[in-house]
């Protein structure tokens, strides 16, 4: 029996012998929905404290300049101003960064993009703070600006940091691409480009720092409160024992409320410590758009070879990620792009070189998809272009090359230990969308309005992989009345973590979810569980909650077994009752048992620590097993293109995901619907623009266009549930898969409808119209 087969067997055994799941897998309503529909949920900006000051940030006037002199004297004298601080006033470390320490709380001698902050002001109210900003005089020596990453790679380009503009190099060498291209009957070479994307969360970042003695509490919209604690403690020069972060409700994050929100927290904390009073800082939408990190624009050059039967023989890839002014998570984002650079296809010979480059544009970092949306857009467009060249149906071409159980990825990982379901997922997507019939039917259209149908798919590594330490913690406590408190560092961002992690605990104890209360992140109480990113909340957080809950359950089980004088394993927890599997007379309400245990001093609290299976990846050779499991995803999009106006309407999206066991079908579907909307924005409307001199153009939501309800198509969601041996109850990941293949499906559908190929996102109307005109000529 192979490792995979034995794992599946164990899994099956566990799933079959266990009683039917009662809470997991059920469409349980969100436990925090009532807070949100009544407006009683508190977000960062909803915290008010007595004697509270307001903080504001002064940002640079130049995208690249030396700071010669900062004069804050006039601002300090302005009535109502309480403090004006610059880099020299940061009590602890002003420098930080996820991978390289190249970011600053406040700019020192240089600014590198328009979001760089120079000074912070606290005043009695927001208006006074804003007025005071105007009175700060800064002398600059402007430096030459570079915004194009290819220009920035050149020897003589303006240097943004001392260590040069190219700050990441990734490579893969598998087989021999020269040989592979010789074996090919068809070779095509294409360049694809993607744009800066803003997270577009609707809640602008907001924090309040509240000092108490020598300690400080910061409330705010932190996606990863433990990261915030690290940055605030560093900036204050205090140990973590003096810093407490309390996570407010998050008005969306999508990867975006980490680095820069932590910096905002640090700025407020520095002012609050200086003044000994609470300081609130809330960004305007413009500040969010200008300062915050974005999703990386990529330039991707693909050369692919295939036999005339459609078998891929070689792929050569060169890509450049625009890192903007600071490194942030770029090396990690690129790690994912690199591992997934061929898409879910068996390619015997692969050569890939990827570069991460500094420019004088907003820095780029984590955003839903994390290096996958760019690569997927390129690979999945390429597969359609290749299919057309070969005269093979795009679905067919994918099925010919898609991974199977035991396939080897470009990094040398053998896909095993989980079900490799890419074919299953593709076939399901084709089936529910009526692919074959529509593909054919839409080929025979005339008139101005033309329909098209397009396909795209992906494989995606689960959780962080070799990015960093991958673990999560949880504390589960049963109360005297049978209520259950669940605390985990995995955070509610809106995705439903509170609900899903509570479901896991409820399932273990065999009680309704109403018994559970979820404790939000408070860094004094909740264990650091790594960031709530990488679609890891359910698999990692759920894993930790399950371990903790099972420990407590075991002790309750032992207590009941002793009471009834039966073997421990004979005690069953189900539907709010605890009973003897062999004798129904021995039965007790869960709440009553909890109370008995409480009065008999049985420990009803425990912690769980879930560690991801060992993985490794060598960035030097590009080899290794970078992720412990993968999800498989396919989207089919149907569109209508007006070939006179270039207008595109997306009619229907069919989304199929193997995310392992679905813990909550409601929240899972919600992830997909939202992912589709975000993916459509990536395809059609969203584009954060910076001019060639480094000045931002799209600084509010009037110019940066998110998809609105009237543009939203109907969405059909199907889950292919292959339980994963590593996840709690077999769960894997979904948040990012839900958005990462939408854009190429839409673009491929446009190509099918209008016979034009958009190779740089987004496919705005004018761009489509220009391509249509060009085609006519």
């Amino acid at each position, binding site marked *: 029996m192979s490792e995979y087969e034995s794992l599946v067997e164990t899994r099956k055994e566990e799933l079959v012998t266990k009683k039917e799941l009662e809470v997991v897998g059920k*469409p349980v*309503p*969100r436990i*925090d*929905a*009532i*807070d*949100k*529909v*009544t*407006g*009683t*949920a*508190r*977000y960062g*900006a*909803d915290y*008010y404290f007595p004697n509270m000051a307001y903080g504001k940030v002064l940002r640079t006037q130049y995208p690249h300049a030396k700071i010669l002199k900062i004069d804050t004297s006039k601002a300090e004298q302005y009535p109502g101003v309480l403090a004006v601080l610059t880099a020299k006033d940061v009590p602890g470390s002003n420098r930080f960064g996820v991978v390289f320490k190249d970011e600053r709380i406040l700019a020192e001698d240089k600014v590198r993009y328009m979001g760089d902050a120079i000074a912070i002001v606290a005043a009695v109210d927001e208006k006074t703070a804003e007025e005071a900003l105007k009175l700060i005089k800064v002398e600059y020596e402007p430096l030459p600006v570079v915004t194009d990453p290819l220009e920035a790679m050149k020897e003589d380009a303006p240097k943004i940091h001392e260590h040069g503009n190219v700050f990441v190099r990734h490579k893969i060498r598998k087989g021999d691409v020269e040989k592979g291209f010789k074996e090919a009957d068809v070779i095509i070479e294409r360049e694809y480009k993607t744009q800066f994307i803003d*997270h*577009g*969360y*609707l*809640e*602008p970042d907001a924090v309040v720092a509240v000092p108490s003695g020598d300690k400080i509490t910061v409330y705010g919209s932190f996606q990863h409160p433990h990261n915030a604690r690290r940055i605030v403690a560093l900036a204050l020069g205090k140990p973590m024992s003096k810093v407490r972060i309390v996570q407010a*409700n*998050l*008005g*969306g*994050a*999508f990867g975006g409320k980490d680095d820069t929100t932590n910096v905002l927290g640090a700025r407020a904390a520095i002012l609050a410590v200086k003044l000994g009073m609470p300081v609130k800082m*809330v960004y*305007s*939408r*413009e500040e969010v758009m200008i300062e915050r990190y974005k999703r990386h624009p990529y330039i991707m050059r693909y050369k692919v070879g295939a036999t005339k039967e459609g078998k891929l023989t070689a792929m050569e890839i060169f890509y450049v990620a625009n890192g903007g002014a600071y490194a942030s998570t770029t090396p990690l984002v690129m790690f994912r792009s690199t591992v997934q650079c061929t898409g879910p296809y068996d390619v015997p010979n692969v050569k890939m070189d990827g570069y991460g480059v500094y420019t004088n544009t907003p820095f780029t970092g984590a955003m839903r998809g994390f290096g996958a949306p760019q690569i997927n857009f390129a690979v999945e467009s390429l597969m359609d272009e290749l299919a057309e060249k070969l005269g093979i149906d795009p679905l067919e071409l994918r099925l010919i090359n898609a991974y199977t159980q035991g396939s080897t990825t470009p990094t040398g990982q053998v896909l095993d230990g989980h079900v490799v379901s890419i074919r299953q997922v593709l076939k399901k997507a084709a089936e529910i969308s009526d692919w074959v019939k529509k593909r054919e039917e839409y080929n025979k259209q005339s008139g101005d309005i033309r329909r098209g149908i397009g396909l795209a798919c992906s494989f995606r590594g689960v959780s962080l992989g070799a990015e960093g330490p991958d673990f999560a913690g949880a504390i589960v406590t049963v109360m005297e009345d049978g209520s259950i408190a669940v605390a985990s560092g995995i955070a509610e*961002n*809106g*995705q*439903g973590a509170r609900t899903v992690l509570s479901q896991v605990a409820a399932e273990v104890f065999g009680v309704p979810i109403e018994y559970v209360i979820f404790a939000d992140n408070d860094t004094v109480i909740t264990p650091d569980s790594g960031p709530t990113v990488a679609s890891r909340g359910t698999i990692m957080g759920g894993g930790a909650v399950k371990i903790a809950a099972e420990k407590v359950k075991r002790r309750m089980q032992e207590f009941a077994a002793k009471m009834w004088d039966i073997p421990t394993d004979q005690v069953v927890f189900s539907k709010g009752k605890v009973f003897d599997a062999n004798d129904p007379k021995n039965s007790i309400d869960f709440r009553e048992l909890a109370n008995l245990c409480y009065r008999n001093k049985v420990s009803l609290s425990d912690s769980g620590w879930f560690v991801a299976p060992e993985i490794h990846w060598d960035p030097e050779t590009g080899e290794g097993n970078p992720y412990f499991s993968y999800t498989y995803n396919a989207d089919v999009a149907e569109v209508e293109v007006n070939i006179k106006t270039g207008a595109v309407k997306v009619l229907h999206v069919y989304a199929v995901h193997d995310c392992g066991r679905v813990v909550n079908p*409601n*929240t899972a*579907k*919600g992830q*997909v*619907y*939202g*992912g*589709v*909307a*975000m993916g459509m924005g990536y395809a059609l409307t969203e584009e954060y623009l910076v001019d060639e001199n480094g000045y931002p153009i799209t600084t*509010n*939501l*009037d110019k940066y266009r*998110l998809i*609105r*309800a*009237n543009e*939203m198509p*109907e*969405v059909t969601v199907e889950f292919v549930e292959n339980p994963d041996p590593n996840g709690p109850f077999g769960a894997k990941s979904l948040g990012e898969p839900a958005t990462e293949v939408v854009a190429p499906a839409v673009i491929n559908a446009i190509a099918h409808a209008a016979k034009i190929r958009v190779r740089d996102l987004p496919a705005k109307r004018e761009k489509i119209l220009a391509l249509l005109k060009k085609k006519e000529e």
Partner: protein
Amino acid sequence: MKIKLTINGRPIERDVDPEMRLLDFIRNELGITSVKDGCGIGVCGVCTVLIDGKPRQSCITKMKSVDGKDIITVEGLGTPNKLHLLQELFIKHDAVQCGFCTPAMILVGYALVRDNPNVTREQIKKGISRVLCRCTGYIPIVNAIEEYAKLMRGEKTS
């Protein structure tokens, strides 16, 4: 200037800066925080309130224009103890994720159905287009409002 208005049925009389945004008045002066600030220029819609029954963006509404008006926020529709039917349906249809747009969406949906109980799915989509949502893809929100309209028409739903 002296101003008189009602918020959620409660009469309010205050001396205010006529240029103050209604949004800031509601949040900072009255402490009603369900009304959110998302863009400040009236395009995202999360600051929507009902002014004399009509959905309006409170971030681009000045205090001088609301004298004598009747204003409703989501707190005026229902409370945790006594949910409004539409709030219940938002929970049922999982029309809530991060929740930042939720109060505005509920107010807009409520006004849509009140004005036209025969509102179609397409009209609902168009109607709620004045409020942005980044999480839900709108579909569950449309489903919730659609069922609300059906129930208001006296039709049976599942």
